[in-house]
């Protein structure tokens, strides 16, 4: 399988700069997700790799060879589009074998291979149906089979699940990952859905406005966002503005309250910071009678509750703002709307992002250093 190197990719469309010098290495067999909001450049990057766009600057290397100017139909990559990409006049089987037919593979061989792949995606029974007779999920599976039929060196997926129903989306994303692991194909997966990206990739590249915000394993991205953007885009975060002082005792001052934060322990200089805390990291202090205890921790009043299934999200008004707290739904019954609660968290839980040191919000503290380099990590 192939490794891909994106070197200083630059692309503009008229006055809009879609990519600002992108650098990334994707290892052989790696599953990398490109995550970001609309217009961040993720699809542009994918299309450049596929050959449908020419970059205005930079290079694309495949297995060490420069393919920047290689025509799209000679790159040996398989691509799955968001929707409607199956040829409507061909059956599922003919669609899948299209790439083989173009390569002048004999009819019998083509059919055999196509049926194998249809089997792989569980749609052998639909071989003779036309796209308009198939559901969205089935169509995308066929599209996947079609892309795999040519034994591509790289698999490219452009938001393949965005147009599907929630249920189908879940099933299909598992299947895509399963297949990819089984076949070991280097894969680039573009999506705007962070849950998708985090659940199935080896590494996630978070993009915003044509630049990489952070690259890392899903746990890294989720647990240790290195910029304000990533913190906001991935998962839900409580954000509290405050001040971290030098020689501090590991607290952040916010609105007259002192909030525990291990990360502020060895702070240098006085800085305005953003304290980030996941809803699931905040705990309600319970008294011996099973009701919320008051007096310790951050005081607050429950303003509203949102039932999310196994978890209930509480919106608690405090002196430092409204905080989201996730509790198991059974427990949440003991903290109804209007009740006074105390909130606490482990000192290691909060992340701090300095709001004064650098405009792009890159975090210098907690020994994290510069954003993780764009190096591949081993397969999960």
């Amino acid at each position, binding site marked *: 399988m192939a490794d891909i190197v994106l070197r200083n990719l630059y692309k503009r469309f008229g006055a809009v700069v879609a990519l600002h010098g992108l650098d990334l290495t994707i290892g052989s067999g790696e599953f990398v997700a490109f995550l970001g909001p609309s217009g961040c450049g993720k699809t542009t990057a994918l299309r450049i790799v596929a050959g449908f766009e020419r970059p205005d600057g930079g290079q694309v290397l495949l297995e060490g060879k420069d393919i920047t100017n290689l025509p799209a139909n000679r790159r040996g990559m398989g691509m799955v589009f968001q929707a409607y990409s199956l040829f409507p006049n*061909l059956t599922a089987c003919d669609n899948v074998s*299209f790439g083989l037919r*173009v390569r002048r593979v004999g009819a019998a061989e083509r059919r055999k291979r196509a049926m194998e792949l249809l089997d792989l995606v569980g749609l052998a029974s639909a071989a003779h149906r036309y796209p308009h007779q198939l559901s969205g999920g089935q169509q995308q599976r066929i599209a996947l089979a079609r*892309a795999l039929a040519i034994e591509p060196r790289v698999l490219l997926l452009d938001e393949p699940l965005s147009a599907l129903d929630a249920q189908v989306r879940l099933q299909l994303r598992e299947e895509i990952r399963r297949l990819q692991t089984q076949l070991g194909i280097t894969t680039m997966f573009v999506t705007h859905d962070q849950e998708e990206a985090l659940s199935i990739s080896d590494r996630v590249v978070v993009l915003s406005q044509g630049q990489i915000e952070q690259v890392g394993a899903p746990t890294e991205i989720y647990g240790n966002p290195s910029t304000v953007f990533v913190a906001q885009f991935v998962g839900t975060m409580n954000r509290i503005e405050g001040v971290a002082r030098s020689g501090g005792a590991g607290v952040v001052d916010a609105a007259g309250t002192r909030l525990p934060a291990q990360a502020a322990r060895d702070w240098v200089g006085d800085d305005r910071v953003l304290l980030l805390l996941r809803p699931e990291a905040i705990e309600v202090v319970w008294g011996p009678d099973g009701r919320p205890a008051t007096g310790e921790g951050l005081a607050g009043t429950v303003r509203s509750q949102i039932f999310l299934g196994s978890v209930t999200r509480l919106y608690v008004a405090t002196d430092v703002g409204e905080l989201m707290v996730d509790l198991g739904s059974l427990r949440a019954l003991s903290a109804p709307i209007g009740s006074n609660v105390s909130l606490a968290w482990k000192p290691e839980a909060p992340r701090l992002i300095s709001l004064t040191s650098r405009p792009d919000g890159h975090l210098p503290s907690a020994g994290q250093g510069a954003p993780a380099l764009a190096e591949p990590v081993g397969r999960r």
Partner: protein
Amino acid sequence: MTSGAQEAGSALPQAPSLPTRQRKFSFAWLGVLPFFAYVATFLLVPSIWLVVGAFQTDSGAFTTVQVHTLFQQQYLDAYKTSIEISLASALIGGVCGLFVAYSAVKEGAPGWIRPLLTTFSGVAANFAGIPLAFAWVATLGTTGVITAFLANHGIDLYQHGFTLYSFTGLTVVYTYFQMPLMILVISPALDGVRTEWREAATNLGAGQLQFWRYVGIPILWPSLLGAFVLLFGSAFAAYATAAALVGTELNLVPLLIGNVVNGNNTSDPQFGDALALGMIVIIGFTVVLNILLQRRSDRWLR
């Protein structure tokens, strides 16, 4: 009418769906009656009259004499010539129009080309008839601008046997409105050929020709054929341009019909009916074909 509705409402306040279903329906039917009566009077009945007249003698008895006369050599020739001109101009205009339309509809084309082309095509398609004939006389006639230009450079068109007032000349003139007509008709269909298909095909290794061969043409052919058929019918029915350019020199069906009407041809009026019947049959056939093909293409290009 409204008082009737109010009566049905009686004590209840006027609500939109209050009148009984039947009353609502008769209301609307009444509203469309004038239109249908008009169309019946001035389109359907005259046409039926013609069709019936083709099978009648002066005194109204049934006969197939007139229709039989149609099959005389000179008239068959007229149909043949008409069909040939229509085919030729439809083919040339169609193919050229297709390539031009494709070039403008393609995603890489600058944004201003498509609206410009649509406008020009609209004008050109409307420019048919008499003005078109004279514009071409001015261009390729015996003293036309292009004729003179070529003559000054040593090529004497008319010496070489070309004349605007002939089959070839008329075909050239007809193509002038066939091409824009094709552009207008085929552009929406071309729009329907999704970029995803092209890109998917390219991604799988196909070149331009392969894409068109395996995917593009199979999807487009109903629209292409339907458009071609429309062009054919359009040329077949053309009267004005032909009258202005070739008058009595060419044997064309519309002209023949005209001749019966204005007395140049002193056959029975029933013969004119027969000629018209022949025309209706041929064009009717093309229209039906066009509808069927349209349905076929809608399936894939929606």
